[in-house]
């Protein structure tokens, strides 16, 4: 009885030491989890998650304050990636946060109507709007994340959301259509 206890204790201590040594010796420096989460988020900075930008949302997720399903621009793919990263189950998008848009939109300014009030410039989270007071503003299309934060401040409603122009260079092959006979379900 005594021998067994001692042996087991010694073994426990030995393995504890080995594990402790391994933990130090083979330590992997990884990005802080906030940065990893932030890297997954689409960086539209739209605030639909109710946090003022993607990084604050990432912080909230890592603190356990926010759920992973509050990012409409990222959609299902982002939720899946977050779930994989954090080891939790993916869940459907929180309808409170908004809906997934079928295609990527960017803002354009109707330059005839714009009065040059600079309110949209102040609202843009990525400085994608150019212009000065009393001068027509314009949006750098390539920098626009489509967050729509510039829409509410505009006093004359001169900002429109339009689909991103498709270019042959950036065109994507669609997923192959399953033809009859393939085990894809539904088609009896």
């Amino acid at each position, binding site marked *: 009885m005594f021998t067994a206890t001692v042996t087991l204790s010694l073994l426990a201590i030995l393995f504890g030491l080995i594990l402790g040594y391994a933990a130090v010796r083979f330590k992997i420096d990884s990005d802080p989890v906030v940065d990893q989460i*932030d890297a997954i*988020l*689409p*960086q*539209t*900075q739209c605030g639909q998650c109710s946090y003022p*930008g*993607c*990084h604050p949302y990432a912080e909230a997720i890592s603190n356990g304050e926010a759920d992973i399903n509050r990012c409409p621009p990222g959609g299902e793919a982002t939720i899946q990636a977050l779930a994989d990263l954090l080891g939790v189950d993916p869940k459907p998008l929180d309808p409170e946060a908004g809906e997934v848009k079928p295609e990527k939109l960017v803002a354009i300014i109707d330059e005839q109507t714009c009065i040059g009030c600079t309110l949209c410039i102040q609202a843009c*989270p*990525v*400085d*994608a709007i150019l212009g000065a007071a009393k001068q027509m503003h314009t949006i750098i299309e390539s*920098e626009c*994340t489509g967050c729509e934060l510039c829409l509410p401040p505009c006093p004359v409603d001169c900002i429109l959301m339009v689909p991103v122009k*498709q*270019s*042959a*260079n*950036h*065109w*994507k*092959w*669609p*997923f*192959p259509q*399953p*033809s*009859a*006979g*393939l*085990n894809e379900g539904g088609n009896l």
Partner: protein
Amino acid sequence: MNKINRKLWKYHGGLHLEEHKSISTGQQSALLPLPKRLTIPMQQHIGEAAHPIVDVGDKVLKGEMIAEASGKVSAPIHAPTSGTIVEIAALPVPHPSELNVLTIVLESDGQDQWCERYPIENYRHASSEQLRERIHDAGIVGLGGAGFPSYIKLNPGQHFAIETLILNGAECEPYITCDDQLMRERPEAILNGARIMRHALHAKRCIIAIEDNKPDAFSALNNALSQSGQNDIELVMVPTLYPTGGERQLIKVLTGKEPPSQGRTLDIGIICHNVATAAAVADAIIDGTPLISRIVTITGEAISTPQNIIAPVGAPIEELLDFAGRESGVNTQLIMGGPMMGVSLSNTNLPIVKTSNCFLLQPAEPTKPESPCIRCGECARVCPAELLPQQLYWHSRAKEFEKVQEYNLFDCIECGCCSWVCPSNIPLVHYYRFAKTEVWAQEREKEGANIARRRHEFRLERQEKVEREKAERMRKKKAMLKDKEGAKDDTAKKAAIQAAMDRAKAKREANQVDSTISASDSQPKSEL
């Protein structure tokens, strides 16, 4: 004679396909009657679209530049005939998406009047830079199908010595005969182009490779070579096997070397160009003619007289099909390129572009149904890139894009051998194309997100700075007000401050004498 028995190598896989080539090589290439309207897309090459330099209403001469290259990977575009620019608008292009691309519409005046051309008298006296510039300005892109701007592939940079220049005349895909026909009809141009390119590259040797199903092309080139009295180019017959015309496969066959996976042929000192590109280079240097027309194969079971046609860039496909004659009363499918790697087009009214080598009009056939993959491994057996197509399929289908890349998706040349042999009739190449474009899109999105993040962080920083400055100003102002108030009731303090200020002034003056630099340095700081 160059018909030496040289050692050739073999690559893995490949297919022996029915050729269907002889149906379109029975006659001389015909010249297409000048179309009235030419629609000339600005994107006919890999890279950035060209930028128009003409306006609607402008009159242009044949060969005049109408759009300039924008950026390094781009090519200028020239007027294929003389006439008037009638429209500059986004119009559909012969691309699988049939998306609209900025296009210049030229109405021909029927004169076909050339602009001034500036040939290079003797290319042997020209520098590599001069030749490259001229080839760039002539808008020459790879005519084998890829459409990569050729001048870049003539600029190996200082770190690479070019051992071998290979001209690819393999033309391994069924039905296509435009290179074959060109080799038969203009062997001198190809040889001259080869010499010019070799001169520009300082390549040690030059090989022209032709599949052994084109003996006429071989003998035409061979005759031209002996007539030229030079023996500087090796003509090599390679065994007919699809896809030997693939750059990497051809290099393996000729040299036994394999260009590194996801690397360039340059890395092993080899540059490969198409024979038609060589002819275009010869035209650009010797005649000063830009790339404004090409030889196109019009063939297929639904064409009455399959043949090769020399047509200006921008000519409607329909006119070429009509010229060769369409079988009436058949439901047809139009394919640009060959049956293995081509692109199906729904509209015959699209223009031919610099890379259009062949149009195949076939009776429409219903697609065979797809069955589940039984992992028979036939696809891996025929894959010339030695990939595992069934694994790529599996992961593409599951949209596991990291896995697909682990299985080297980007080494896939989309030759279609795997789909061809698949007993389950799975559209494997479609899955790979889907996965490739999806991976690229994800990369672009990632890039975009990174830019947005940086811009957002920069904005936050700036806002913070503005806030900080504002707060600082407020604090200073408050302090100043306080000082003024304090001065009224406390003369002792005032005296002390005065004394301090005097001291500071004295010090400042002393410093000013010492060094004006430090004074000017402190200037902006005090403003903060």
